[in-house]
């Protein structure tokens, strides 16, 4: 805690003494230092967490890796800064990290008042509730008077207040600093309900000693588009991050995967795939990075479907269905502008 306070203090000091950045400063600085400093969560399975080998993995981590692959041709050139929900924006504002990829909801206030820019949406989420099975609650409308565990500094706190207010129900909020403590509080029975983005609920549920002792309620009470964030006023860097994400989604749409990308690159006659893999079109010129940037992303990180299934989908303990995160042509809303 003390260290975190120091960190926050340090960030503030940095905010006050940093020279003013010129547009493109972050991309130049990242190229010069040779790695991307990426802000992630303090541990959220499926999105950003360390595996048993101590490496960071997850859907959010894959965005960081995609950016590193695009800039350096090497997805491993990322350094991670674990941040709590409270610290994340200050860390980004002060320049301590180059980008924030930490299940962060895109809202009007954050986009306008915090000096930040959202680069896109890598997961469409919504807030839900998890309750102890023993309570026998079937719907969120039965939660009048409940004690609710929340993680501090999230949109969750506001959505929860709005939801209970609009339904004319009362609740007791218990607000913890990190998701680990939130789970512990829920497990110890301090609260009846744990509320968070629904994807996180599944991730937190498998952290419980007995995951079957809790159920996720069907209601979704908010829209939570989660995506990577960069500093305001640095368009070159914003575009690199944005198109790194778009390349993954476009690759899925074209059916290019990490396994077949080499073959596709050799044999394809499809002009769309040729542009994606940097064989024709404007290549990396507009983004001021290597020509084969999208190829490197697909080769080393994979397309969006691969990243999704590996981290949160069927290939993971979370087993979240694609749902609205499916591609637009498969009935979802994931849609990326064309690479041409």
């Amino acid at each position, binding site marked *: 805690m003390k260290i975190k306070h120091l960190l926050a203090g340090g960030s503030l000091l940095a*905010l006050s003494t940093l020279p003013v950045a010129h547009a493109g400063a972050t991309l130049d600085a990242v190229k010069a230092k040779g790695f991307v400093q990426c802000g992630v969560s303090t541990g959220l399975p499926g999105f950003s967490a360390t595996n048993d080998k101590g490496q960071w993995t997850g859907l959010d981590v894959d965005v960081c890796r995609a950016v590193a692959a695009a800039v350096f041709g090497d997805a491993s050139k990322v350094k991670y800064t674990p941040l709590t929900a409270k610290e994340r924006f200050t860390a980004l504002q002060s320049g301590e990290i180059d980008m924030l990829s930490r299940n962060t909801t895109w809202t009007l206030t954050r986009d306008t008042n915090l000096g930040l820019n959202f680069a896109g949406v890598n997961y469409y989420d919504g807030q839900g509730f998890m309750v102890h099975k023993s309570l026998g609650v079937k719907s969120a409308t039965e*939660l009048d008077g409940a004690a609710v565990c929340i993680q501090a500094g999230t949109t969750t706190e506001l959505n929860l207040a709005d939801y209970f207010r609009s339904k004319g129900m009362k609740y007791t909020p218990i607000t913890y600093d990190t998701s680990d403590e939130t789970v512990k509080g829920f497990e110890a029975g301090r609260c009846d309900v744990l509320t968070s983005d629904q994807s996180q609920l599944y991730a937190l549920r498998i952290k419980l000693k007995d995951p079957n002792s809790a159920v996720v309620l069907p209601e979704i009470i908010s829209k939570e588009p989660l995506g990577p964030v960069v500093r305001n006023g640095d368009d070159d860097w914003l575009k690199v991050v944005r198109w790194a994400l778009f390349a993954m989604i476009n690759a899925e749409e074209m059916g290019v995967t990490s396994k077949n990308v080499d073959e596709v690159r050799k044999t394809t006659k499809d002009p769309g795939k040729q542009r994606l893999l940097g064989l024709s079109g404007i290549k990396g010129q507009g983004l001021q990075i290597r020509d084969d940037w999208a190829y490197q992303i697909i080769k080393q990180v994979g397309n969006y479907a691969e990243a999704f299934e590996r981290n949160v989908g069927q290939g993971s303990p979370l087993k979240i269905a694609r749902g609205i995160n499916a591609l637009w042509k498969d009935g979802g809303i994931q849609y990326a502008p064309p690479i041409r």
Partner: protein
Amino acid sequence: MSDASSEKAPAAASFWRDPEKRAWLFQVLVVAVVLALFGYIFQNTLHNLEKRGISTGFAFLNNEAGFGVLMSLIPYDETYTFGRTFLVGLLNTLLVSAIGIVFATLFGFIIGVARLSSNWIISRLAALYIEIFRNLPLLLQILFWYFAILPLLPHPRQSIELGEAVFLNKRGMYLPAPITESGFGWVLAALGVAIVASVFIARWARHRQDTTGQTFPVFWTSLGLIVFLPWLAFGITGFPLSWEYPELRGFNFRGGITVIPELFALALALSIYTAAYIAEIVRSGIQSVSHGQTEAAYALGLKPGQTLRLVIIPQAMRVIIPQLTSQYLNLTKNSSLAPAIGYPDLVALFAGTTLNQTGQAVEIIGITMGVYLTISLSISAFMNWYNKRMALVER
């Protein structure tokens, strides 16, 4: 100087050779450099914030907060402003600090005296206590008390009951809330009168002892007054007090007063941790009084208890108070570890949730630091005043 001007010596011409003027020059220079540095930091911060499109100013304090709070000493709900959340957080910080200071002092004095006990077991136990709690990180202790106590308590529907009025479960301790009716003011007035009377009796008794040497049972008389007078008023006005009992409804108890487990765990951890330091301070204070004083007191026929109360402690206090002050300051500042267990203090509510919702880190951290500084300086000022009162009066 006066010699120089009368003799018209050339000393005035050499500005650099006049140590007084030189000292002035350097001091002005230092102040100017420091001011310029702060000015630069301030300007640059504003410039950077504006450049990056981050909002500045204190207008956000009037915006609706929109989030709920676990515990508030003043009326609060989601429709109140961020300014109000600041107040809620501040009061919660002051509450836990005050409780912590009272209990840390109490435990600290008891254990400090126990440490010096001639009974081997008592003094060893006190030493064990000090060594354990002084050497474990405070955050760990807070988490321990919180997550160790929670699982031991029952769920709301199986609460521990005490006479159908007090309930204890994982959500906290539920006490009946007193509801005063008209006429209760007389009871308070009687209590006030009893306290004032006790003070006068104490003064009178001391004066009498000084002049005649006769003692008077001040303690028992005062206690009798303070207990008896309010009860008398209470009876005469027809018991103008009723209780609102907590009631199990739906998920939990409603009504009455709730003591949340977060407050309990934080206050407990802070008291126990700081008490270990205070115990050592008390021990050092007592040991600073030479043993000859004790022997002299015994020789005069004072009992050990009286010796401690009348001879040793008043002298030890001079050593104890300055160090006690810094422990009080530490305790207050340490209460900012509250967010770890979800106690809604200033750091959790204002420098936490509010900061995150508004993003105005510079203003909010600035205000928060200002508040802790003010609290600390106030405690410090009070303790300095008390120290002056207790200090040795040299004649």
